[in-house]
């Protein structure tokens, strides 16, 4: 039972009710900035005649969660990728690594934290929909179970094939995301990343990290072996030099 959002760009009228609700829900200061920042978790912008939302994609296997050295980011069982500001040391690896460019930083603060959409995890835990989905007047942003949303998105494409690009963004990208999108123009023209692998990115570093224990064991054995051999050689030479004297 994992939730998500379906954003249908063809239904968005750019009213920014979602941004306003997000500000209120998270207690963020106004104004709503043109691009997402640590103080504006979601924005709407016009591209190619469509209105497009920018927000955290809440990946199924989040890159940010895997790179955080102190585990400040985590994906709850219900789906939202949440941030624990109390653990964060400010290394900004999450900002560097996120393929969607989502996490943002409070560069202006002496005690800064990361800011990003949290899929209203508190509301979701209480059985409510996200703030943005609750207020969206056209239903462009829809909240629900991810599987149901994927099915709904597919159904819309099948029902009106000329109206949509034949692709539900977020089903496969970076291993799949909880936030899905539909569009009538190709997604890269909306500014969305389309060169992402279908495999979750954390696999790329886990492939290397998972070999560390083996490496430590093998290297330790090898290096000790080298040491032992060279010591033996030295001891043998020493014995030979002392002309038939005992070992060492």
């Amino acid at each position: 039972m994992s939730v998500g959002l379906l954003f249908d760009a063809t239904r968005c009228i750019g009213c920014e009710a979602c941004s306003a609700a997000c500000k209120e829900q998270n207690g963020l200061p106004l104004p709503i900035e043109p691009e997402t920042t640590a103080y504006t978790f979601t924005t709407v912008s016009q591209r190619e005649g469509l209105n497009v939302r920018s927000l955290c994609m809440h990946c199924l296997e989040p890159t940010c969660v895997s790179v955080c050295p102190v585990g400040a980011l985590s994906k709850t069982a219900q789906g939202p990728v949440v941030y624990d500001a109390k653990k964060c040391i400010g290394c900004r690896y999450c900002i560097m690594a996120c393929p969607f460019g989502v996490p943002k930083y409070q560069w202006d603060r002496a005690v800064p934290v990361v800011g990003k959409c949290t899929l209203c995890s508190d509301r979701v835990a209480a059985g409510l929909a996200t703030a943005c989905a609750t207020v969206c007047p056209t239903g462009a942003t829809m909240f629900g179970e991810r599987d149901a949303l994927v099915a709904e998105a597919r159904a819309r494409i099948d029902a009106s094939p000329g109206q949509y690009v034949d692709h539900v963004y977020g089903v496969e990208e970076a291993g799949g995301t909880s936030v899905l999108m539909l569009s009538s123009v190709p997604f890269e023209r909306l500014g969305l990343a389309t060169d992402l692998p279908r495999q979750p990115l954390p696999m790329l570093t886990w492939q290397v990290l998972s070999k560390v224990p083996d490496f430590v064991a093998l290297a330790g054995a090898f290096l000790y072996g080298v040491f032992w051999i060279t010591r033996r050689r030295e001891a043998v030479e020493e014995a030979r030099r002392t002309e038939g004297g005992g070992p060492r």
Partner: protein
Amino acid sequence: MTGATARRFTRLGFWAYVFALLLLLLVGVTALRFSRGLGATTNLSDRFPWGLWIGFDVLCGVGLAAGAFTLTSVVHLFNLRRFEPIVRPTVLTAFLGYAFVIVALLFDLGQPWRIWHALVFWNPRSVMFEVAWCVMLYTTVLALELSPVVFERFRLAGPQRLMRGVYTPLVIVGVILSTLHQSSLGSLYLIVPSKLHPLWYSPLLPFYFFISAIGAGLGMVVIESHLSGRAFGRRLEMHLLEPLGRAMVVVLGVYGLLRFLALRRNGALAELLAPGYEASMFLLEVGLGVVLPVVLLSLPRIRRSERGLVASAFLAILGFVMNRLNVAVTGMERAAGMRYLPSWMEVAVSVGLVAVGFAVFALAARHLPIFPEAAEAAAEPDEEAPGAIPASLPA
């Protein structure tokens, strides 16, 4: 006061002024950094969250201290004893290098007072977590490897005996730790295949970082010996350093070949032929920093001359620094949609910290038995010291 002495004094005076200025700048920028935050003091932003302090201070600082693990394994594990005299200064350089990295991190982290969090909050799936632990542990190992020097200075026989017992396991642990995090600094960038430019991205990044660290470490040993020689009026031990020059040919040669093969596998060769910013930076890095030193050091005449060896080592280190900066900055600029240049305050911190490192090295070399002659002077033959104290401990 003779003319030579007077000249040396004024030369020292000039550098003292430079150092004082850098220190002053460092203190001022530190105050700004911690009162006004990162945005006010750096050119970092959401689009470019990592800059000079990561690309140079962390990536280069850690790599340049690789001379220690290379040399300690060569001397104590592969038992090539003749390099023993340069182990101590190399380990000191490495220790100061890692201290430099940690202090630089205190500037770069958004909440540096939480730097200890990695000890308590674990995420073993994170490369950064592994780097943090390895750096902490290896800095400890380096401190322990240096402790005999301090014990010697203060004639602490008991601790010296203790260290002698654990020295070999210490060296083995040090080599393992150093290999792990030299390579995991490269692994940090495995996670951004869509962002790092194909001229530098490779699934073998950790391996490349490790090999280039060995090459740079060897170069650092040469340069550090040369600089210490100039400062303390000692001549370069050419019979020791020339073989290192030969080793550099092999290491850098293999590394260069691997990078070329990586380009072929990436399909990035076409990028090289088309003129462009990234292509130029790549050619500069590999041409000046890999091809040229390999060519120069393979010529015995150059390798056996002090100037030739030092110049080639310098080029190799330059190439290493360029590689790390290209990975951290140049290679990330296209995806970020912007060019990054550090602010003067970022530069002031990096340069200031390097200057402090030099000063601490000079102080340590003057007051601790880092160099072989000083060690011999410390071991006064008439005193009943427990056993002769060599320049470094045999295992």
